């Protein structure tokens, strides 16, 4: 049942731009897609390994800065008379570097902070994000600080037969985000279904038992953190080349909160959860914009977060699943119930 949600979303969202010409809505969908990728990556940690990382925005922001700086070039002097000059290069190289470097950051943070669990882990991740934000704000020579990195080039993709194509239009960026989201989803889905995914869930359910079965906790969690960070970094790179201006505000805690709300509302630890939550909360600002001010919207998000935790602690997707189970009296009615339930989900 829920395995139909992702392909359904893919088809629906691949068709959307054909009928949708409103640039504002298309923009909202692109941002939603980018945040949904972040939510999926956060779900890998929060949902499947049960580690509440509240510094996820750090990887998003580092990805954005790495990718933008690779494309724009920079010239910084370091202590001891060292000097690094970079001319600026292809945005695609920036994307690859962003993924690689955020993956490395995720690996290091994972190695270091999985030594501490629970509340401590949460606070380490928040601190990491804040330190990175302060570096972005203060290392003006590299990041321009609060003046922001501007005129970041659009993503350029080599297309067979056409040469290098710069993705200038919203439509092109939309399909790029959709493609990256689909790949991220597939990677997570394969991972979770593998032996490795079972190890992750084992650790989440009962760590002592998992350890006694020979599961290497630190290694499993570190791999999850690395992958999760790399995906958030990819999302950051997409964001930088789409928006074309980034400042230290990409590290704000409110982005992390948005991702957490998406994962928790959709259903942590489910594949479809972050998709449902991501699209819901990505598009909610569009629906609320005519009715209320941004700060009032945040009040609504906070209230929804609390309401979901009280009413559907496991999230929307698991709640719908159990509802579908109750509505389905006998196994032979299975095929009849499927389309109706899948249609009710978005």
């Amino acid at each position: 049942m829920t395995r139909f949600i992702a392909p359904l979303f893919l088809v629906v969202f691949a068709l959307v731009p054909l009928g949708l010409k409103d640039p504002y809505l298309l923009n909202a969908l692109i941002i939603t897609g980018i945040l949904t990728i972040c939510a999926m990556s956060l779900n890998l940690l929060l949902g499947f390994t049960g580690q509440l990382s509240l510094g996820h925005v750090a990887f998003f922001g580092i990805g954005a800065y790495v990718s933008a700086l690779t494309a724009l070039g920079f010239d910084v002097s370091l202590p001891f008379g060292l000097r690094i000059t970079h001319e600026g290069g292809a945005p695609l190289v920036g994307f690859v570097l962003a993924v690689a470097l955020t993956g490395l950051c995720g690996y290091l943070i994972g190695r270091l902070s999985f030594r501490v669990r629970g509340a401590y882990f949460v606070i380490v991740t928040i601190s990491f994000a804040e330190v990175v934000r302060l570096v972005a704000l203060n290392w003006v020579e590299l990041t321009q600080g609060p003046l922001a990195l501007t005129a970041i080039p659009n993503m350029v993709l080599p297309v067979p037969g056409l040469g290098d194509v710069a993705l200038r239009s919203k439509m092109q960026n939309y399909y790029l985000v959709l493609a990256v989201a689909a790949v991220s989803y597939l990677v997570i889905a394969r991972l979770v279904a593998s032996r490795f995914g079972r190890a992750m869930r084992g650790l989440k359910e009962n760590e002592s038992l998992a350890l006694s079965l020979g599961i290497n906790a630190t290694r499993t969690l570190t791999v999850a953190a690395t992958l999760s960070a790399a995906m958030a970094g990819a999302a950051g790179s997409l964001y930088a080349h789409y928006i074309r201006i980034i400042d230290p505000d990409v590290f704000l805690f409110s982005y992390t909160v948005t991702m957490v709300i998406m994962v928790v509302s959709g259903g942590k630890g489910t594949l479809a959860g972050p998709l449902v939550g991501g699209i819901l909360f990505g598009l909610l600002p569009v629906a609320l914009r005519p009715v209320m001010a941004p700060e009032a919207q945040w009040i609504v998000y906070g209230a929804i977060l609390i309401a979901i935790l009280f009413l559907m602690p496991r999230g929307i997707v698991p709640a719908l699943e159990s509802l579908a189970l109750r509505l389905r009296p006998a196994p032979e009615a299975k095929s009849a119930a499927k389309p109706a339930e899948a249609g009710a989900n978005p």
Partner: protein
Amino acid sequence: MDQLLQHILNALVLGGTYALLGIGLTLIFGIMNVVNFTHGALYTFGGYAMYLAAVALGLNFFVALPVAVVAGLLLGAFIEFTLLRPLRRSDIDTTMLVMIGAGIIMQSGTLWIFGGVAKAVPTPFPAQPLVIGPVSLSYVNLFVLGSAIALIAITYFTINGTRLGRAMRATFQDHDTAALMGVNVSLIYTATFAIGSALAAAAGALLGPVYVVTPQMGELAAVKAFAIVILGGLGSISGATIGGFILAFAEELGAGYISSGYRDAMGFLIIIAVLLVKPTGLFARAERIG
């Protein structure tokens, strides 16, 4: 040397309010096992309560301060009663997320009601600083330090010298046994959260007149409170007191001698460093980590 003395004096003033913030957070974590993400919002609330009482209602400064603290106490009791009590049996992540939601509501609500423009709270103290030899100290800072020390002392007395405090300590050690001994654990939880909130509000109400009151003032305060609590060990009150002063000294000396831009990074660097070296905090008494 004179500069160093001045930094030390500034750090003492700052450390008093940091200790207030840290004690509130560590009490709530130690006794209730709740990571209170509304702590920063409660600090902001204290600042705005002070502003409302002193400016909008026109109360005397020395009357407005206790009013703001009591308002924080009541708000804390309300949050505990409505949000935390129904989630008593939930895991720590759930309460953490609910507290994040409540924190967002409070912060955005403040922004919505008061707007983003900073508010100043007038003080009755002379603007001229008190000059003692090479160092100077404003009267309002002196008052802040004195009040912070007084509040810390009251908290210590409440925890160590009253029936309520004994019940709180019993609940901290083992809430089931405490309940069997006739302690009303629910009431202790409400009291703990209310006291912790009152201390955060007091820190905001004291620092609001020193700086200005803004809806975002609680964000950094919250993370600093986390740093202090980790430094001192989650759940340790004397640890939080010492941690508050250590953080203040690190910030003040770091800003003075290393780089003022990274002043606020000190707290986070301390968190990361402490957790890597001694994850239980420097002064942890009991291991009670969820």
